[in-house]
């Protein structure tokens, strides 16, 4: 690592980078399987396309030949007796071929475009759906940034290939083969001379393919550095300015900007060699054909028409070769993208839906942990053996230090994770036997990250219960003391969260998230640090609301602050995944010697 890049620090190799690095200009196993699967329904349509494209290319290749016929057979009758018939027939044939080619091309472009778009739609829906099926545990590890880039830049790369690459590749291949064949047909000797350029083309193209694969990768890496540094320093501009980071940032930015320039320069220079290289081979070939052809024509072995046709064909021959240089990059990034998408789609949901689900139309809300074991990392159990019954209607508070397993317990009840041993039961039914819809109807969790979706505030509250009336929405917010601030916003409940909503404070967002949960009206409500962003008066308001809302409902409340615990019927103190104290809050405090009592004393002291 050079001094210039020390600031980045060390990190494990990213799986995405690995996928990127592995990609040569060929499809990996996963990408190939995925592509095959996606295209399977279109097998017949694809054969039709092949037929269309062959017709198109035949028509295109016929035109220089017709020019030859026009010159060789059309001109003599005009010379002899001004007879235009042959020429007109030939020109008619050129127009016919043009029309045929145009029709075939239009057909091909629209049809292949439709298949491409259909495939893309399918990929998008499958990938989005699959991400939704994967558990939060998967999302924790995968990070939202990567989920988003799978669905944006990767899908776009595939789109790019479908849009431009497919057509380009097919046309280039058919042109190469078709032209070679026609040249040999027109004149074997001259054709062979022209095709002498083949090995040189192959060598040059092969060199370019490998070199550009490397340089393309380098460019991508460097541009990623530029983007990350740019976005982070602008996103964190407050810290940048507060800590006078500007000069150092400029230094780093100049460095990555320069690295990007250098990588780009390599890429540009490769093209600067490749394109004129192709041009050189093309021009030399044309000159040699001209020289040799003129000699043959002089001897009378070929006609002027053949010579003209050769020149036209050779033009067509070299053009697609130039386009190939652009196509490689498209193809490479698409194949890397496909590989990554295939990797996501192969990811098995680790919290699978039951094969024969148990119906649970109404729930009382009894929650039972039956010898539950859980470990995020093997051999380091977070919950070694948890046995716990929360009777229906009880309000249970969980307290304990960070890492005691409180949040894990909540995530097992909501089936964000499945236990590694034992069972979690809702009203006596293993939660793994409930469909996720059934479970979510009865068990709802509110966390400290109160995410709001784009849309209005009312939309966001209704997220908990789509059919809810406005009156029900207002009822929920009024209970929470959130009605006043929402009503005071410019558009009230119709205020767009994305625009003016940016002004919502963390506490206000949390209230909206709360309202969402109240409206959902679940049998079991789990609050994980859900009041952490509220100031004391708001928190108190929420707690008053909780007392009414939680009546007749099972609730599990996790809190750092003991103030939240005050409304609980029962308190569990957890440590290292075990329950160390269990009882009514008053009893635990009254005991005077336990950990809860100590925590409570410390808390009261902190308030004093």
């Amino acid at each position, binding site marked *: 690592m050079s001094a210039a890049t*020390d600031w*980045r*620090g060390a990190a494990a190799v990213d799986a995405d980078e690995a996928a990127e690095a592995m990609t040569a200009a060929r499809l990996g196993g996963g990408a190939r399987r995925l592509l095959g699967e996606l295209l399977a329904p279109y097998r017949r349509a694809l054969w039709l396309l092949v037929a269309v494209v062959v017709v198109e290319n035949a028509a*295109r290749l016929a035109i220089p030949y017709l020019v030859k016929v026009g010159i060789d057979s*059309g*001109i003599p009758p*005009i*010379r002899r007796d001004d007879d235009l018939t042959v*020429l007109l027939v030939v020109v008619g044939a050129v*127009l016919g*071929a043009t029309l045929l*080619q*145009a029709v075939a091309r239009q057909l091909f472009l*629209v049809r292949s475009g*439709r298949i491409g*778009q*259909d495939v893309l739609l399918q990929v998008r*829906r499958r990938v*989005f759906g699959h991400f939704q099926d994967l558990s*939060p545990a998967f999302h924790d590890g995968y*990070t939202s940034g990567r*989920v988003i880039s799978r*669905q944006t830049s990767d899908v776009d790369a595939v789109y790019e290939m479908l849009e431009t690459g497919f057509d380009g590749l097919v046309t280039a291949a058919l042109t190469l083969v078709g032209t070679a064949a026609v040249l040999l047909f027109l004149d074997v000797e001259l054709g062979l001379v022209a095709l002498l350029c083949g090995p040189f083309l192959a060598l040059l193209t092969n060199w370019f393919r490998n070199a550009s694969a490397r340089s393309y990768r380098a460019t991508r890496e460097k541009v990623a550095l530029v*983007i*990350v540094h*740019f*976005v982070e*320093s*602008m996103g964190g*501009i407050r810290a*940048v300015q*507060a*800590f*006078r980071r500007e000069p150092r940032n*400029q230094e780093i930015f100049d460095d990555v900007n320069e690295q990007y320039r250098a990588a780009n320069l390599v890429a540009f*220079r490769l093209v600067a*060699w490749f394109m*004129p*290289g192709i*041009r050189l081979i093309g*021009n*030399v070939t*044309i000159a040699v054909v001209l*020289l040799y052809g003129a000699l043959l024509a*002089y001897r009378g072995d070929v006609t002027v028409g053949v010579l003209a046709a050769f*020149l*036209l064909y050779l033009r067509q021959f070299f053009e697609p070769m130039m386009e190939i240089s652009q196509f490689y990059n498209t193809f490479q990034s698409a194949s890397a993208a496909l590989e990554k998408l295939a990797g996501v789609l192969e990811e098995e949901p680790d919290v699978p839906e039951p094969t024969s689900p148990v119906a649970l139309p109404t729930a009382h809300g009894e929650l039972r942990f039956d010898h539950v074991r859980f470990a995020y990392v093997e051999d380091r159990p977070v919950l070694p053996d948890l046995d716990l019954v929360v009777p229906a209607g009880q309000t249970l508070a969980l307290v304990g230090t960070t890492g005691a397993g409180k949040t894990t317990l909540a995530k097992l009840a909501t089936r964000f994770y499945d236990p590694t041993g034992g069972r979690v039961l809702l009203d006596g039914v293993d939660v793994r036997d409930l469909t*996720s819809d059934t479970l979510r109807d009865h068990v*709802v*969790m509110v966390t400290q990250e109160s*995410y709001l979706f784009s849309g209005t505030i009312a939309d966001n509250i209704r997220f908990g219960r789509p059919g809810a009336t406005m009156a029900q929405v207002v009822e929920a917010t009024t209970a929470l003391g959130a009605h006043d601030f929402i009503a005071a916003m410019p558009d009230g409940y119709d205020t767009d969260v*994305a625009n003016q909503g940016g002004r919502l404070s963390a506490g*206000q967002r949390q209230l909206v998230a709360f309202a969402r949960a109240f409206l959902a009206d679940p049998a079991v409500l789990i609050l994980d640090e859900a009041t952490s962003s509220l*100031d*004391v008066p*708001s928190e108190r308001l929420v707690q008053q609301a909780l007392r009414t809302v939680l009546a007749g409902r099972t609730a599990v409340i996790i809190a750092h*602050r003991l103030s939240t615990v005050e*409304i609980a019927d029962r308190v569990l103190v957890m440590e290292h995944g075990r329950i160390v104290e269990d009882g009514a*809050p008053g009893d635990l405090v009254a005991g005077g010697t336990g950990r809860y009592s100590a925590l409570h004393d410390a*808390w009261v002291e902190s308030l004093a």
Partner: protein
Amino acid sequence: MSTVLGPSPAEAPAGAAAPPPADVRSLLRLAPYLRPHVVALTIMLLTSLGVVALSIAVPLVTKALIDGPITERDAGAILPLGLLALGLGVLEAVLVFWRRWVQSNAVLGIETAMRHDLYERLQRLPMAFHSRWGSGQLLSRATTDLSAIRRFSGFGVLFLLVNVVQLVATTAVLLHMYWPLGLVVAAAAAPIVWLCMRFEKEYVVVSRRVQDEQGDLATLAEEGAVGIRVIKSFGRSGHVGEQYAAAARTLHATSMDKVRLSARFWTFLGAVPNLAVAAVLLLGAIGVGRGALTPGELVAFITLMLSLVWPISSLGVILAMAQEAMTASARILEIFDTEPAIVGGTRRIERPRGHLRLEHVDFAFPDAPDEPVLRDVNLDVAPGETVALVGATGSGKTALTALVPRLWDVTGGRVLLDGIDVRELDLVHLRSLVATAFEDPTLFSMSARENLTLGRSDASDADVAEALEISQAQFVHDLPWGLDTRIGEQGLSLSGGQRQRLALARAVLARPAVLVLDDTLSALDVHTEKLVEEALGRVLGSTTGLVVAHRASTVMLADRVALVEHGTITHVGEHRELLATVPAYARLLSAEAWADDAAVSV
């Protein structure tokens, strides 16, 4: 939250100054960036013109070959003419190579210089600017817009010129050779260029629509990813899935419009040369038959004609490119034209004591001047003293702390540091005197060390270790690579509490005269909070402190408390004193109130 996927970059944020018009003038204003590359640009132009000349010359050699040796039976001319064709062909390749080689360097130099300047300017623009512009919008200017300008300035302009020259010169040669055919070419060129431009225009519109819809889809993808826990909690995967599918279908439909449009366009472009060949063949063969044209001229004619296809059809593309570059340059000028509103003064404090004084301070955000956030705030913090700011959410505490290091400027009154208005102080100097630990800590994707030493890059390992100890952030030593571990978005992810402790360590490490803690300990558990507070007490013993606090425990760090209500300081005093005499303060923090509530519930 700001991600790369900000709102569509096309829409300028509310309150932004009117952007410069997207016309040639805005492009020309960026012309100074071309100046260092004048030699390269001249070479590019000359070589391109050379290539044009050669593309006309080679078909003429072909003509000479056909009409001379073949028709006139002059064997001696074959070799020289053939070698001439070879030489010209090689020369063309060399010229193209030369142009591309020079061009690579020049265009990348232009782009890199612009990006450098853009970044520099953006770093100097104050929070007032950045709070309006998402980093996604700025990024699209630093990447997409700069590329558009690069493409046009390094490629578009050149070929706009060269193509016109080629069009005119070739047509002149054709007219000279056989005027009826030349006339056909000249007559056909104009409508084709026009058609190309029209297609291009329509294409830009539909492409923009596709882009917008892709943006919408990306937003949904983002929400599906970031909001996954909420979606799961409420079992609404089906609902968001349908939303996404609907947006994807809309995009599909628009994309098909684009496919159909471009299919027509490309089909048309493919047919143009064939139609030209048909016309030339018809007229040319008749001309040859009647003796008005030689066979060699006919062949040369067809080749020349075909060499015009690209210059003509690409004119539309290049003009669209020009339009794009003008829009892009207007968007970039919008940033260059924004003057940094917060500029430092010249004064320095030689021996800073940390005496902080706010006099009749007013503050309102620029986009809402009628809704003052702070009004008539007065506060005097003696050197070494620590004052806690207590108030309900939204009362203006954070805004108040941001005025000291001039992240924002007061709209009335003044902030004094050791008796000097902060606006008169050198900005870098001021910010070295004041360090803030923010509530939502920004960590960059860099090593932990780089993140910590943000405010003091020369800090020794011992300094770093001390700061980590004060903020109870020793966990850093246990990261896989210790202090060299990359953290932040692209590195190891840390918990909220860990991030806050790092932000605190960062502020402490800067050894400021004034330390600002903006509710820095909110995500810590009671135990850790206690340890941090003990250690912080030592630091604050000698440093002037401004502490935003929601909890009584944090208030205990302070010597005095200021109660902030509705944007102004209503009471200043000691904690117990306020607790006893100010009911509003008691409501915010009092233990008794809690105890009363608790008594009811137990």
